[in-house]
């Protein structure tokens, strides 16, 4: 290529000096309700700090990491989590990616006026896999109170075993990496409840079960999960 021609081309199309340096690969999704909608069970202060501080922090760190990486930036969030999990040897971006996903899932797992018990197919499946809803609730609360690190508690639909299970993960880990389908999750990192409940995690977890958990969302997720996991024939009563 003639040097003069090359120089002309770059100066004509060189917008580098004018273009901004900001790149954003993922956006911060707000919770599907106002930040004070979960009062008095989860204060506005907590939601503002948890979403606006922690969740936003993970997202910004993720975007910063992706801006420097020539390969990772092209994945969708789900793919990114699996790729950065790197089969058990997580890459540095894993923490941020997984925490963004976990928190998105968490806000959607709650709703104002939540709590109570699920209905229809999800309730049937819970009763089938745990005996009764009361037993499931007990086991879920127990799992939340016996975690020995920061982390999450999940209700998942196990793909291979074809039943629901309660799973504890530590720090940023998510059952997505084991290819299970999450139905609800609960953040048991201390930052999720410390301002409202101090060290009384039991109160927080019980409040979550009684007033916050969104079984509506869970039922929707379960219905979608059944498109991927064959749970057998439904029990249709014969007249």
């Amino acid at each position, binding site marked *: 290529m003639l040097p003069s021609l090359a120089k002309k081309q770059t100066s004509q199309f060189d917008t580098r000096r004018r273009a901004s340096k900001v790149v954003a690969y993922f956006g911060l999704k707000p919770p599907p309700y106002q930040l004070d909608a979960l009062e008095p069970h989860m204060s506005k202060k907590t939601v503002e*700090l948890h979403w606006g*501080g*922690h969740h936003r*922090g993970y997202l910004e760190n993720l975007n910063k990491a992706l801006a420097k990486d020539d390969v990772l930036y092209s994945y969708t969030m789900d793919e990114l989590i699996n790729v950065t999990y790197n089969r058990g040897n997580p890459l540095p971006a894993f*923490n941020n990616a997984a925490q963004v996903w976990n928190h998105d899932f968490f806000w959607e797992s709650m709703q104002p006026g939540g709590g109570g018990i699920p209905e229809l197919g999800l309730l049937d499946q819970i009763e089938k896999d745990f005996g009764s809803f009361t037993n499931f609730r007990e086991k879920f609360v127990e799992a939340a109170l016996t975690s*020995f*690190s*920061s*982390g999450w508690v999940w209700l998942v639909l196990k793909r291979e075993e074809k039943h629901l299970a309660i799973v504890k993960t*530590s*720090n*940023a880990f998510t059952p997505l990496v084991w290819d299970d389908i999450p139905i609800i999750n609960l953040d048991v*990192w*201390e*930052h999720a409840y*410390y*301002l409202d409940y*101090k*060290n009384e995690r039991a109160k927080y977890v019980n409040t979550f079960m009684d007033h916050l958990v969104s079984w509506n969302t869970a039922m929707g997720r379960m219905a979608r999960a059944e498109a991927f996991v064959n749970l057998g024939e439904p029990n249709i009563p014969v007249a």
Partner: protein
Amino acid sequence: MALRSLFSRTSLAGLSAASRTSSCLDSKALGLAGLAQSRGLKTASLPDLPYDYGALEPAISGDIMQLHHKKHHQTYVTNYNKALEQLHEATLKGDVGTVVKLQSAIKFNGGGHVNHSIFWKNLAPVREGGGEPPHGSLGWAIDTHFGSVEALIQKMNAEGAALQGSGWVWLGLDKETKKLVVDTTANQDPLVTKGATLIPLLGIDVWEHAYYLQYKNVRPDYLKNIWKVMNWKYAGEIYQQECP
């Protein structure tokens, strides 16, 4: 004795209702511990704080100190004693399955007790020397290994801020090589889990409960300020014991 240690000195106005209920729980814990002790099992007990809850202000608030000591540390002690009881029974019965199952509870709660007992001694009010830089052989060793105390502090703060989740950042001494090390441990793992010859000189709790009420999610600010109440004298004493 165990009784005295459950009623630690506090400067906060009176004993609030909350702390009164906690003393009731403490007496239950004492009952359990007493039972175990009568069988020859040496149970853990909550050590006294060598200063008032509000004495480390403004670096660490009195609220945090009270919760951290009276609730969190006490819970580790109580649950360790419970797990120890269960372990004792399972060992006597030869129930290997239960013995193995209890390991994580013992490591977590026992580790929490060990780590926090060191932590309270690592801190001191300013008027008792908190924040005063190290002198003597420890100061000299820090300059040799890290260049300066500032460099060491920067290194520990960087590692503490980068720690994902919950854990501790330590200044330790390898008693074999006599070298100073900076290391982190996850959750409540004591420093010795990172190396059998490591002795903790200073530890900083970076669990969120250690700073959240005051510093919210800005862990780096907590790490910057805690050095103002760091008890280098204690670290120096431990160091001199190992490297006379």
